[in-house]
């Protein structure tokens, strides 16, 4: 850990170098951290890695011109070189009449420290401790004649932002994740846990690997079913895929302003089932909290969808200016060409248990997770992907057995308009694009469109 004081010392040096090089205003950001990951396959550890890095990202402003440079060479010469490069780019770039300027300190009051965001035990978990967790999964798998694969990872990060206008923000956090995939006789099951610290996952980790192994055993000898419209119960990991794509396709303020969002012109209207309420909360200690964005603006809690109605959009300073609004603290930084996006999304839980959802389904499919999902038609939020690691037929309110994996091609908006029940229990799922945590329950949908089948 670099620490608050040293982080700002690095950033102050960078700001001084930017000014010396000719910047009229400047922002400097420090991202630092270490991550360690133990990976296993075929019931043994086959890859085991650690990395430690710290880098600055510098934005130089000259009037309406902006230039950027980043480096992980944090000695005097390295930072000075990056500062000169950022200024040189700014001097040669054309003016951007829409550049809103750097954030004023009044819009970036010091963000509160989120209690528990950094957990020392999680951040410093030793390789031997990770191996001990791996052994839980591999020993249980081996005892059942199953092959287990997966990872156990931990780490810590620091983010500091400072500007020549006086903005100063600092945050530190820890992260932990453990995932297992079990395979037997061509069938597979998996589990995946992620949180900012070990503590909330300890009960789950006591039996790490069991869910994956038991699912794989239950998924043996699948039968084929025809694609088509099926009632589905989506386990939390499958739900997280739908939510992540809805965020990506529908809640980018810049895409709204350019008319290329699936929710463009639909804010304030009902877009999905009234059973769906979606919030973004960068301060949620149960997620992976980060109290401010990459411009230094404190993150506001947003209600993205309230009882099916699209409500609030996340904004950067740039998109907020265009919308005549205030930044909500969702920027990726002044150098980013993207609009703001929420990174701490949670789907409000309901009151249904998974067993009750299954019991109330005459015929349907239980989906453990989706895989390799991609956008087929962005305007209608149509996505396509495969099921993976356990797909089960439900008949007469009971699980009737495993079935071969299917491909779905479905509009997220249509799918989430058919919600019949929302699970009571939330699970944190690592974001679709590495980073952030999506907290979701299971969902029951009256119909979901499968368009193809595979051979296993």
């Amino acid at each position, binding site marked *: 850990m670099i620490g608050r004081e040293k982080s700002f010392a690095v950033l102050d040096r960078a700001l001084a170098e930017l000014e010396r090089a000719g910047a009229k205003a400047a922002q400097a950001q420090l991202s630092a951290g270490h991550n360690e990951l133990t990976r296993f396959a075929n*019931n043994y550890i*086959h*890859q085991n*890695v650690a990395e430690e890095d710290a880098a600055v990202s510098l934005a130089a402003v000259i009037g309406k011109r902006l230039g950027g440079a*980043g480096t992980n060479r944090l000695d005097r010469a390295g930072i000075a070189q990056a500062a000169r490069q950022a200024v040189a780019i700014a001097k040669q770039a054309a003016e951007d009449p*829409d550049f809103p300027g750097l954030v004023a300190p009044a819009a970036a009051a010091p963000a509160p420290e989120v209690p528990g965001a950094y957990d020392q035990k999680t951040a410093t978990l030793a*390789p031997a401790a990770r191996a001990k967790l791996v052994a839980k999964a591999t020993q249980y798998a081996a005892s059942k004649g199953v092959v287990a694969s997966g990872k156990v990872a931990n780490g810590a990060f620091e983010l500091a932002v400072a500007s020549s206008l006086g903005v100063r923000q600092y945050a530190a956090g820890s992260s932990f994740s453990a995932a297992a995939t079990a395979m037997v006789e061509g069938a597979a099951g998996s589990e995946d846990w992620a949180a900012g610290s070990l503590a909330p996952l300890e009960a789950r980790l006591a039996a790490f690997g069991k869910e994956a192994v038991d699912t794989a055993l239950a998924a043996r000898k699948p039968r084929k079913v025809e694609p088509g419209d099926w009632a589905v119960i989506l386990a939390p990991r499958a739900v997280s895929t739908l939510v992540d794509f809805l965020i990506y396709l529908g809640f980018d303020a810049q895409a709204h302003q350019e*008319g290329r969002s699936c929710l463009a012109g639909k804010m304030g209207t009902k877009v999905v089932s009234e059973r769906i309420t979606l919030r973004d909360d960068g301060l949620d200690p149960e997620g992976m909290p980060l109290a401010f964005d990459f411009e230094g603006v404190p993150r506001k809690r947003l209600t993205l969808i309230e009882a099916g109605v699209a409500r609030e959009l996340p904004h950067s300073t740039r998109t907020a200016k265009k919308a005549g609004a205030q930044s909500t603290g969702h920027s990726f930084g002044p150098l980013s*060409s993207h609009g703001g996006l929420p990174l701490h999304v949670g789907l409000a839980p309901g009151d249904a248990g998974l067993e009750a959802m299954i019991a109330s389904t005459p015929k349907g499919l239980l989906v453990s997770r989706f895989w390799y999902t991609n956008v087929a038609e962005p305007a209608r939020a149509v996505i396509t992907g495969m099921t993976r690691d356990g797909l089960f037929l439900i008949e007469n309110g009971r699980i009737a057995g495993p079935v071969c994996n299917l491909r779905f091609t479905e509009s997220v908006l249509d799918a989430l308009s058919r919600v019949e029940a929302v699970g009571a229990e939330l699970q944190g799922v690592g974001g679709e694009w590495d980073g952030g945590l999506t907290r979701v329950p299971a969902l029951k949908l009256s119909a979901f469109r499968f368009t193809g089948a*595979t051979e296993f």
Partner: protein
Amino acid sequence: MDPILISALDAARVLGASFAEARMVEERSESYEVKNGKPAQAASSVSAGLGVRVLVDGCWGFASAADVAKKSAAARVAKLAAKIAKASALVRAAEPVKLGAGGASGDLQYHTAVQEDPFKVSVEEKLGLLAAAEKRLHGPELPVTQAFLTVFRRRTSFANTEGAAFEQEITETGAGIAATAVRGGEFQVRSYPNSFRGNFATAGFEYVRAMDLAGNAERVSAEARQLLDAPQCPPGRRDIVLDGGQLALQVHESIGHPIELDRVFGTEAAYAGTSFLTTEKLGSFRYGSEHVNVVADATEPGGLGTFGFDDEGTPARRVDVIKNGVFVGYLSDRESAARLGLASSGAARADGWSRIPIVRMTNINLLPGAWKFDDLLAATDGGLYLATNRSWSIDDRRLNFQFGTEVAWEIAGGKLGRLYKNPTYTGITPEFWGSCDAVCAREFWKLWGTPNCGKGQPGQTAHVGHGAAPARFRNVQVGVVK
């Protein structure tokens, strides 16, 4: 040899490593975007560090750090790698890791042949070139017009305890344009020369100058607008011709990934998945028709998977993958190849200093056939010509795939006719390649760069290449989206 590398290897030996390799890597990049007449991105970055991988007691450990200017820091990284390897031994395989034949010994050098160093072209000129092209995209119903440019350079200093060592400098350049047409709640994108920021090569700035971005801009904008009025691509089974860009991604997903030997052995099972291409299929499995010939060729000049040495020090090579439709070769590294008693195919590649080498694609090239493009259209009446990838998805054993492209044209009277929007097609890998009955000739063959291939945990992004010419596939399911 760099004293930092020597320090790292010496420390690893003292700590009991039976094998160690050290890589110092510096990556520089510049990224530019002009959007709607204004600069949207102009930034550079540098990332440098040291990665040390060791075998202790037959198990792997790897550690990496950015701040390694001092020899003591190199020893610290090696010490952590050894500590991690000892933890790996707590849940070890029945057999210790065995490595196949290593790389060439001695101090070797390689650098991308570059006519015009892209880092020496001024920022003003780069942005000016983009602005000139982007301006010609402007028009009604086109609220988003973009031009992109990326330049990248990776310098690697490598050494291992077997005496292999090399210095390598890879330079990459890429650019492209895109226009988004919007009407009501609908929008359509056309791009050139490829989607997702354009096309990429190991080359200098001459590669971008030769693209003629400005000369293609008006066509791109016109096609984006025309797509708004085009009918939805009708579903059904059709003969299709894929353009080189889409075919490159088809090769990537349904050949490039399944031939990765680490996937076959299950070491990517928990994330990227496995492969249907189990080892008993080597040498006999019919992957496609006799028209399908594929090589993994890291020696092809200009490809994004072109280099002198992979990240285990194995010299670049060309390996047959599919010969006359029969599967004959995997992509491998030293460890996976040894399990089959083979030499590495030279495909161990790492994403910078902080990642271990894993089995990655090099240039996975579909070799050209004999057809003239116009002759192929003339012989495919009633078919569809699909161009420029828009989306991709494939199952975790690489069998069931579905792709979307930006555009499709009906083939009628030997020519491209009516335009269709939102085309998709789907299939099962060996059936699809079995339906290939025509591949266009060398004059239509081109290298396509894929700079965003994800794999591994922690995540690694590889830059890989695919040579392809347009090809025809019979009786393919098209248009699955309602």
